[in-house]
């Protein structure tokens, strides 16, 4: 009996040491918007994310400044006029993965994440579909969704020659490593 108690204790202990927490420090986030004059696209590889496989908690954050455009003027306008990155430096998402995914088993799992997306300082409740892949203990998450400019008070003025589209496609790809304290 005593032994069982010790084994149980040992097991509890292992279970407790933050196992199942994954972090990503260079999540890739891409934007794409079809515009009449020319397509607008940008990529950041400076997204950070934390995924707790036990609770399903998922958090994302990306600095707006880190989005790289091919055209520097586009990048300036993105920061200065549309996203106001001085005022709202990050876009964030915080939510919960709805499915129970066993991250100890290799495989590809379709997931649904429900949570709050904050872009341009405006919160929106979103349910986003994505995919979670486990391979040799490494977790990769991908998702693609659309952000509407008007949902986040990103105004598109009439007096602008380079018109931008009203919806922006966003693609996220995050490679996670198990978090070590």
């Amino acid at each position, binding site marked *: *009996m*005593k032994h069982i*108690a010790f084994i*149980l*204790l040992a097991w*509890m202990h292992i*279970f*407790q040491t933050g196992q199942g*927490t994954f*972090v990503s*420090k260079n999540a890739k986030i*891409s*934007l*794409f918007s079809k515009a009449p004059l*020319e*397509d607008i*696209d*940008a*990529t950041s590889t*400076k997204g*950070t994310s*934390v995924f*707790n496989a*036990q*609770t399903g*908690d*998922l*958090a994302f*954050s990306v*600095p707006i*400044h*880190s989005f*790289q455009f*091919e*055209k*520097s*003027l586009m*990048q*300036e*306008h993105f*920061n*200065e*006029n549309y996203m*106001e990155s*001085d*005022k709202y*430096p*990050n876009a964030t998402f915080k939510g919960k993965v709805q499915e129970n995914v066993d991250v100890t088993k290799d495989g590809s799992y379709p997931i649904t994440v429900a949570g709050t997306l904050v872009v341009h300082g405006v919160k929106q409740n979103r349910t986003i579909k994505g995919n979670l892949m486990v391979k040799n203990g490494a977790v990769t998450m991908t998702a693609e969704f659309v952000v509407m400019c008007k949902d986040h008070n990103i105004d598109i*003025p009439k*007096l*602008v*020659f*380079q018109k931008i589209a009203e919806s922006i*496609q966003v*693609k996220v790809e995050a490679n996670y490593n198990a*978090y070590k304290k």
Partner: protein
Amino acid sequence: MKIKLLAATVLLLAMQQTYAQKTAKDSSSTDSLMKSLSSDDKAEPVTAAFKSTMLILTPTTETIKKKNLNFMVVHRFGDIAGSQGGGKTLWGLDNSSDIYIGFEYGLTDNLDIDFGRSKYEQLINLGLKYNFLQQTTDGSVPVAMTIIGQTGLKPYHVTTTVFDDYTNRLNYFAQLILSRKFSSRLSLEVAPSFTRNNLPYPFLVGNGNNIFSLTAAGRLKLTKRMGVVVDYVHPFSHFRRNSNSPKFYNPLGVGIEMETGGHVFTLNFTNAQAISPMNYISDTESSWTKGQYRLGFTITRVFDLNGKHKGTYK
């Protein structure tokens, strides 16, 4: 045995309790983990302290990015009021005291080569502009710094006949600009400058070749795309301060700045007749108080010459 079992069970339950607490705290630990991850981030450079490379009189710390071409058209009309202004010249619109056409090309993201031509004294200027220090978001670098070096040539006889020798027609201008973007709305800059005219200009007894000057300028955005700009230049010149005929005045400009996509427009009022610093630092003889201020505008347009857009969204 029973007691031991009980003790083990109590211990287990206690462990269970802490485990339960731990799971309950997990969402907040996700938050704190996110915080610690994002605080690892390096400070980013502060961008777009100003919308264009020039305010009214003074260049800004901004440079044209690599393989981009900035085309500038700057205009100064005639005196709005005073003896030269009024209705007979449609408040100065009939005259142009100076017209400047300029090109700025980005050799790298921080270095550009500039070329321009003024109507005033037919000055041709060629120079380099280098942004060697960038302000950072975390405040570890509080200001941006840019240095400008320009050579000017006045190719024609204009007001004097002593321009025969080409070396006499050369002018030099060097400026160090310090700017700080205090917020997304407010940016200020100061710029100590040195101007050298190989022949003192205007060519008068007692005038020296070299003039130090100091600029203070700023922008306050009223909306995202529109702001107020103020620009003041103070030449330190004993000759200019004490001269009575002609009298010299310090250039001061106020205006509004508007941005529409690739263009930046500045509509301004200034007493300086000339656009190039080599001209207005040496020779501003018109005064706000005598009605000798004029409407002016600056139009800049940036062309991206990086070739066809490839697209990175895959």
